[in-house]
């Protein structure tokens, strides 16, 4: 939505996004230098961000929106590296698809690349060392990363455009109605699909998940063993 954020807000979100991106790039270099075998996993998780964020799906509210696909990458590599992949996808969409735009790119990176993945990563970290099934954990992380992205989008717009009556709160409720409600069914389906993808990663390449300490080794071994 190029042009729909006033200049000061566009700059504000850019200022938040930039240090996170720099940190993400440094972290990415470190992870890849430590283990070249992490690169294919990055390809898979990044590939799903490319695929899912291009699919505009209809939802129950009679409008369309797209999933984000960021949860899987966030579980495997953490939210900062995910921000870098998201920035690439969002840049492509701004330059060639008029979907987003260069001035609002900062705000979009914050919602899709930083806060969404951070929320997914938070729930994943909370459940990682508990007895909760790993696929259920991945499902929750992915669904939450998707859903929170659109909560933050609503927040960004409500901050920039508080309603005359009711101020920020009533704007936020209105934008939540547009973005977040549409997103609920999409977030659930995305979570299930990415949990399934994670199952295939566990079956094909459990070693890399063990090495990156995505889940405790015995949980991954158990999951890879019974499938």
């Amino acid at each position, binding site marked *: *939505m*190029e*042009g*729909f954020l006033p*200049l000061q807000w*566009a700059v504000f979100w850019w200022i938040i996004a930039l240090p996170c991106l720099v940190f993400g790039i440094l972290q990415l270099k470190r992870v890849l230098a430590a283990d070249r075998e992490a690169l*294919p*996993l990055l*390809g*898979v998780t*990044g*590939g*799903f*961000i*490319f*695929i*899912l*964020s*291009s699919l*505009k799906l*209809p*939802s*129950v509210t*009679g*409008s*369309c*929106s797209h999933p984000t696909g960021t949860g899987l990458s966030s579980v495997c590599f953490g939210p900062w590296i995910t921000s870098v992949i998201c920035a690439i996808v969002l840049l*492509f969409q*701004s*330059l*060639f*698809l*008029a*979907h987003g*735009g*260069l*001035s609002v790119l900062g705000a979009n990176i914050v919602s899709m690349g930083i806060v969404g993945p951070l929320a997914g990563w938070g729930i994943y970290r909370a459940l990682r060392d508990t007895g909760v099934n790993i696929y259920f954990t991945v499902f929750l992380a992915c669904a939450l990363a998707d859903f929170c992205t*659109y909560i933050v*989008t609503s927040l960004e*717009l409500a901050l920039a*455009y508080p*309603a*005359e009556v009711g101020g920020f709160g009533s704007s936020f409720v*209105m*934008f939540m109605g*547009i*973005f977040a409600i549409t*997103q609920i*069914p999409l977030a*659930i*389906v995305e979570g*299930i*699909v990415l*949990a*399934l993808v994670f*199952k*295939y990663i566990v079956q*094909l*390449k459990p070693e890399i998940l063990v090495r990156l300490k995505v889940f405790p080794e015995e949980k991954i071994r158990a999951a890879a063993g019974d*499938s």
Partner: protein
Amino acid sequence: MWSRYRLEIVAIVAIVCFCGVFLYTSSLMNDAEYAGSDTLGSAGVAELTGVSEEAFQPLVPQWEPPSGEIESGLFALQAAVGGIFVGWVFGYWKGQKNRST
């Protein structure tokens, strides 16, 4: 043997339900346009500010796909690039696994 494919079954059921809910609601809502939520968001901003949507000009000059066909083509290209990555890596891992066993 069913328990091996539990997650696959859940995924298929979820997708079928998603399609089913879509068919059901779209048959109830005749006026639904299935516009993008971005478009609705823009309309929301216009409504809040009382300024027409056309008045919001890009802050940074922006190239727009000349038509919906071209736009959907570019979206498909993006998905295809992602698909190539995913397929390539899964194939690479599968090959590694077959060789080691």
